[in-house]
């Protein structure tokens, strides 16, 4: 019945608890260091000689994909719900930011917050409708929402249809912002959202959402209010995708129905979240880069991007349902587990810190 004996399990009683704890703390520090190094490296990229403004805007657009996929991953990964309508929230964020800049010459930071907030509020209202639907009906309902938003921006005069709205935003907190500035803003947003999701997933809220995902009745018996927590997840998910939309509008300085009325965005984000691995912190980052960069790599064959995305989606669902990142992480996890097993058995040479804490406690 038991497939494997994980670290410190049954057959081998833990002999050296302190060693296991020390090793675990060490792994934790390694994880954090890796993520911090990743973001510091991204912040240093513009210092590379030959880095041009257009590269910065393209990079910011990749971040748009990543943020949108991160937003969606809260639903698909941690909550166990599928939305095929997140392009709608992207559009809401984008138009909110664009209209604020056009009519009120709003600050970039304010426009970003407003885009996220508007998408969040509408996401919350939609959740009250969507959460009455289950499984495939939820997917179809959310797809309908994306169509609805697309139709509205195409046909309601206020949104200027295919003519589009130009978004000449160029100041954040009073400071002038150019292409490189938008690059930094996008990386900071990416870091903040990643930190937020990390905190969310590890909190009681993350545990409650994963509980509802894995065993709904059991979670309810523990006092988790299903409607409240799923609505919260939907709201946060929509807000982050709305933030991505606002960033997109501000970096490209233009929104139009031709771009944001397109429901294919919704599919792109779903592919990004699922291919990368939506229940892992790095999943939507890797998936977002994959989906956003694919047309660049294909160059003249860019029309084939959709086929490749489809193939990638099916292949991942068949062979690695937890996503590409899960496959990459597997050997590292196995290696760490072996070390933990050895530590538990008292065989791992763990360097122990001198007992400073104990001395401090006595003084």
């Amino acid at each position, binding site marked *: 019945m038991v497939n494997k004996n994980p670290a*410190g*399990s049954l057959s081998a*009683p833990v002999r050296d608890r302190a060693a296991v704890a020390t090793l675990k703390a060490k792994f934790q520090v390694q994880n954090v260091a890796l993520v911090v190094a990743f973001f510091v490296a991204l912040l240093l990229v513009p210092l590379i000689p030959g880095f041009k403004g257009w590269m910065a805007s393209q990079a910011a657009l990749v971040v748009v994909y990543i943020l949108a996929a991160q937003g969606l991953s809260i639903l698909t990964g941690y909550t166990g719900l599928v939305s095929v309508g997140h392009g709608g929230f992207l559009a809401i964020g984008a138009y909110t930011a664009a209209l604020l800049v056009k009519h009120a010459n709003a600050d970039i930071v304010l426009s970003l917050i407003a885009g996220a907030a508007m998408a969040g509020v509408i996401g919350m209202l939609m959740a009250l409708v969507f959460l009455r639907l289950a499984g495939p009906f939820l997917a179809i309902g959310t797809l309908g929402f994306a169509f609805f938003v697309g139709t509205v921006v195409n046909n309601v005069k206020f949104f200027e249809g295919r003519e589009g709205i130009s978004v000449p935003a160029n100041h954040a907190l009073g400071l002038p912002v150019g292409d490189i500035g938008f690059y930094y803003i996008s990386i900071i947003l990416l870091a903040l959202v990643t930190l937020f999701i990390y*905190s969310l997933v590890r*909190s009681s809220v993350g545990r409650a959402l994963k*509980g509802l995902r894995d065993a709904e009745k059991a979670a309810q*018996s523990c*006092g988790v209010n299903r409607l409240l927590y799923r609505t*919260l997840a939907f709201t946060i998910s929509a807000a982050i995708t709305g933030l991505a939309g606002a960033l997109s509008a501000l970096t490209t300085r233009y929104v139009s129905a031709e771009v944001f009325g397109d429901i294919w965005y919704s599919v792109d984000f779903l592919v990004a979240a699922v291919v990368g691995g939506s229940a892992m912190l790095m999943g939507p980052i890797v998936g977002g880069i994959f989906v956003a960069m694919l047309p660049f790599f294909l160059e003249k064959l860019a029309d084939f991007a959709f086929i490749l995305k489809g193939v990638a989606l099916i292949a991942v669902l068949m062979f690695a349902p937890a996503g590409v990142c899960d496959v990459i992480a597997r050997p590292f996890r196995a290696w760490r587990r072996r070390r933990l097993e050895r530590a538990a058995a008292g065989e791992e040479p763990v360097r122990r810190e001198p007992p400073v804490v104990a001395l401090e406690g006595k003084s």
Partner: protein
Amino acid sequence: MATLLACEKVNVRFGGVTACNGVSLEVEQGKIVGLIGPNGAGKTTLFNVLTRFQPQDSGHVYCAGEKIDSRKCHEMVEMGMARTFQNINLFGEQSTLDNILVGAHRLTGGPLGNILSLGAARRREKALTTRAIEIAEMLRLEDELDNAVKNLPYGYQKRVEIARALASEPKLILLDEPVAGCNDEETAELREVVRHINRDLGITMLMVEHDMSMVMGVCDHIYVINFGANLADGTPAEIRSNPEVIKAYLGEEAEAA
């Protein structure tokens, strides 16, 4: 002694099938009460009515003196009621520690403070984690805290269910067939766990159970239901010698023989 949980003339029909037909019971504070009956007697339905996972068609349910007919299943834990599930219903991908911590959900406070990991939420989280580890130690799960529960053997998973129920600091735990599928050794172990929780922690219990060694061994009072209605209730000794009960379990011929 105060009555902690009671139901009165509960009726539940599924289409043409009557699962509960005017069944009543009372669970006194501090006791271990058993609920038994032949297959299809309506035990699980009644259990789900008591835990609010199943609405009744008529009749009333009371918890700690309050009528809870319109309460939702996720509100019961606030009233001091926790439950376990017949077929193990754990959060398989999550660790033992996280499973126990979900059990402590009602003590975690508002969601926003927790997401942003604000000071108060962080202190509470720390206290709850310490408490969860204590519960795990009590149920001898301390070496499994970081392991995904889906990898644990059956008997361990049963104990994680009980640990999760304990984490909400309940006054009352409802156990749905706690030893179903367990071998003799695991059953004996769970019997000790149940006794310990009742005697030492003062937690009242109601269990649905088929295993007679378990029911007769730990229960203070037993309700027998058949065809959705009360058949008998009394101490284990009374139930064992009740001719009606013997008839229901063994059939008419046994009596004739």
